[in-house]
C-alpha cells in the first residue's frame, strides 16, 4: 500500500496505542472536541456535580453513515443529549468511543467529527473523555460510535410512570422522518424527494419549557419503535389508557407516501429529533404555544389524552369513527409481500 493511502484511511496501527494512534487522536478528536478537561489527558475526566444527575449511554450503528439530514456523528451527539434532555436534565459532559473498521476513510472520519462538534454547540455539552479502537476489515460496518452523557436534572418530576388521567399527549413535529430517510438511503430508492431525517438536539426546546415552568409529567424522544413504542411504554409503565386521534398526528407527505409503498405505518418509524410529552390538560395549550413560538416546533400538536378506558393499552381513533389498538412494532421492519 502506498504511503498516501496509509494517510487517507484508518489502519490497524491507528488502534495500536503507539505513535499513529496518538496522532489520530490528537489531530482529529482533540482538535475538534477541545476543552480543558479533555486536554488534561488524565485516565478519567474529573467532574463536579451538585444536585440530581442523569446518566445515559447509547451506541450508534446506522447504515448508511451519511444520510439526508445528518450522519452518524450528529446522531451520536443528538441521541445521547436528547436522552438527558428527556429527563429534564441539562446535558453537560459526554464520553465518545469510536470503533473503526480498518480502511475507513480519514476524510469521512473528519466529516463525522466536525458534525459532532457542530451538534455539541446546540446544547453546550462537552466531550470530556473517549476511546478509539480499530478492528480488522469485515469486523465492523465502517464505524460504530458509543456516547455516554451526564447532565444536571432541572426538573425532577418527569417519569415514564408519571402519566395521569386527563393529561394531554403532545407530539413536537411530524413523525417518522428518520426511519423513512434511512430506508430511502439504504435501499437507494430512486424517488425524487426532499425527505430529510429529523435528527436534531432537543435540549433548546426542553430548556424553554423548563424556563416557562411547564408541569411536564412525561417526555420521551420517539426513536426506534417510533410513536407506537413510546405510547405503549407509557401506558404500560403508568398503567393508564392512552387514546390518540389519527387525524391530529402530523405526518409529512413524503413519509406517508413511503409508508404506502412499503406497507409501513408512520407511527412505527424511528425519529431522532421528535419527542412526545404528557402534560396536564390545563397547560396543554400554553405548552403548544411555547413550543410553536420559541422552538421551531410549528407542527407541534395535541394528538390525544390519557384516560382509564383500557389501562396499559393505546387506542388509535380513525377519522371515520372506528378505533383500534396501536400496538408496539415487532421484529425487523420488513416490507409487505403483496
Amino acid at each position, binding site marked *: 500500500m502506498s504511503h498516501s493511502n496509509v494517510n487517507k484511511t484508518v489502519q490497524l496501527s491507528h488502534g495500536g496505542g503507539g505513535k499513529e494512534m496518538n496522532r489520530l487522536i490528537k489531530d482529529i478528536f482533540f482538535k475538534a472536541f477541545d476543552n480543558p478537561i479533555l486536554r488534561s489527558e488524565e485516565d478519567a475526566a474529573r467532574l463536579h456535580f451538585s444536585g440530581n444527575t442523569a446518566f445515559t449511554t447509547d451506541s450508534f450503528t446506522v447504515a448508511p453513515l451519511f444520510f439526508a439530514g445528518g450522519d452518524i456523528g450528529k446522531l451520536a451527539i443528538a441521541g445521547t443529549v436528547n436522552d438527558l434532555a428527556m429527563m429534564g436534565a441539562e446535558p453537560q459532559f459526554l464520553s465518545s468511543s469510536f470503533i473503526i473498521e480498518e480502511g475507513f476513510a480519514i476524510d469521512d472520519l473528519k466529516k463525522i467529527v466536525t458534525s459532532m462538534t457542530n451538534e455539541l454547540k446546540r446544547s453546550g455539552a462537552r466531550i470530556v473523555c473517549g476511546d478509539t479502537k480499530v478492528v480488522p476489515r469485515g469486523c465492523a460496518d465502517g464505524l460504530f460510535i458509543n456516547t455516554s452523557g451526564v447532565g444536571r436534572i432541572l426538573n425532577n418530576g418527569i417519569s415514564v410512570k408519571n402519566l395521569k388521567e386527563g393529561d394531554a399527549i403532545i407530539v413536537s413535529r411530524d413523525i417518522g422522518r428518520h426511519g423513512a430517510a434511512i430506508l430511502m438511503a439504504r435501499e437507494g430508492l430512486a424517488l425524487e424527494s426532499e425527505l430529510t431525517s429529523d435528527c436534531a438536539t432537543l435540549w433548546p426546546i426542553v430548556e424553554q419549557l423548563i424556563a416557562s415552568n411547564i408541569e411536564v409529567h412525561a417526555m420521551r424522544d420517539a426513536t426506534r419503535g417510533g410513536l407506537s413504542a413510546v405510547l405503549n411504554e407509557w401506558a404500560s409503565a403508568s398503567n393508564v389508557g392512552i387514546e390518540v386521534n389519527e387525524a391530529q398526528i402530523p405526518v409529512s407527505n413524503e413519509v406517508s407516501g413511503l409508508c404506502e409503498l412499503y406497507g409501513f405505518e408512520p407511527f412505527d418509524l424511528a425519529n431522532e429529533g421528535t419527542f412526545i410529552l404528557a402534560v396536564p390538560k390545563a397547560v396543554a395549550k400554553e405548552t403548544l404555544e411555547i413550543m410553536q413560538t420559541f422552538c421551531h416546533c410549528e407542527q407541534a400538536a395535541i394528538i390525544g389524552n390519557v384516560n382509564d378506558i383500557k389501562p396499559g393499552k393505546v387506542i388509535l381513533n380513525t377519522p*371515520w*369513527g372506528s378505533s383500534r389498538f396501536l400496538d408496539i412494532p415487532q421484529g425487523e421492519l420488513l416490507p409487505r409481500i403483496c
Partner: protein
Amino acid sequence: MLSLNDLYRGFRDPEVIKSLAKEIAIEAAKYSGKINIMEVCGGHTHTIMKYGLNQLLPDNIEFIHGPGCPVCIMPKERIDHAAALASLPNTILITLGDMIRVPGSNGNLAQFRANGCDIRPIYDPLDSLTIATDNPDKTVIFFAIGFETSTPMTAVLLDQAEKRNISNLLFHINHVLVPPAIDAVMADPSAKVNAFIGPAHVSVISGAKVYRSAVDSYNTPLVVSGFEPVDVMESILMIAKQKAQSIAVLENQYSRAVSEQGNLTAQALINKYMTIRPSFRWRGLGPIPDSALMLRDEYSHRDAERVYCEQLPDIEIDDHKACQCGDILRGLSKPKDCKVFGRGCTPETPLGSCMVSSEGACNAYYRYNGVTE
C-alpha cells in the same frame, strides 16, 4: 417530489366512508340472513382490521378471513427446505419480506441467519441478479413466494438470468394460486361463506375472469376490490346489493387497475417458465391439487428443489395440534375460539399460520381488535 398521497387520499375520505356505511346498512337490512363475506386476500384482512371497518357495519355482515396470505400458507416443510438450502456451504438464500419470520420445524430463517447462514431479505427480486453477479463463487438461491401477484417478478428474474447467462442463480418455487384455494374452502360442506371480496393485486395479473367459475359453482357474489378503505366499503355495498336482490354475479370494483383478461404479457412470461404443480400442501388447509406452480422441465438446472433433492427433507409437518387455523381459514372458527390464541400463540411465538404474518387473521385480531369489547 414524491406524491403517492394523491393516489390514496381520496380513498380515505371520512365522509365517503361514513356515507357508504349508511348505504350498506340499508341494503343489508333487505337480506334476511347473514352475509358471510370471505376476503380471500390477507391485504383486505389487514385493511378491515387496521381501519376498523368491521365496526362500521351492521350485525348481519360478518367477515371470514381467507387463505390468501403467502406467508401464512407456507407449510413448515417448505421453510425447512429454505433453511436446509441456506445451510449449504457457499450459498446465499434470498427471499422477500417477512418470510424470514415464519417458523419452520427447527426455527425461522432469522434464527438461521443469526447462526451464520447468509440469508438476505430483499425488496426487489431483481436485486438477486446483482447478488449473483457479485458472488460468482457462490450459489444464490431465490426462495420465491407469493400468489399470482408476485409470480411475474420471479418470471422476469428467471428470464434475465437466462438471457444474461447467470448460471449461479437457482430458484425454489413456492408460487400459489387463488382459485384452487377458493375451491378448497368451499369444498367443505359446512362452509359458511356466501360472498367473496376478490383479491386486488392478484387480479391485476390474472384478470377478473379467473373467478367466474367460483361465482357460478357456489352461487356467491364476488367483487374484486381495491385495498383502500373506500374500496373495501364500496365492495361490501356491491355485495350487499347483490344479496338484497338475490343475485350472484362477478363485479369489478377495482376497475382502475383490473381488467377482465389481466396482464397477458405477464401471464405469457409465467407460462414460459412455470407450469402447474400437481399438488401443494397449504399450511392450515392441507394438500390442494393444482394449487401451485413449479419450474418447467427445461429449466430444471435452475430448480433448487431438483438440484438439491438429496439434501431437502421430505417430511410433512403440521402445525401444533391445538391450532385451529384450518377452521379459521374456512370461517368455521374465529381466532378467539382457538385455545392457544394470545396465550401459547402470539406474533412473537406463532404456532399457527394465521398468527405468523402481519396479514394473517389471528395476527390482525391480536394486534388491532378488542377495543370495543
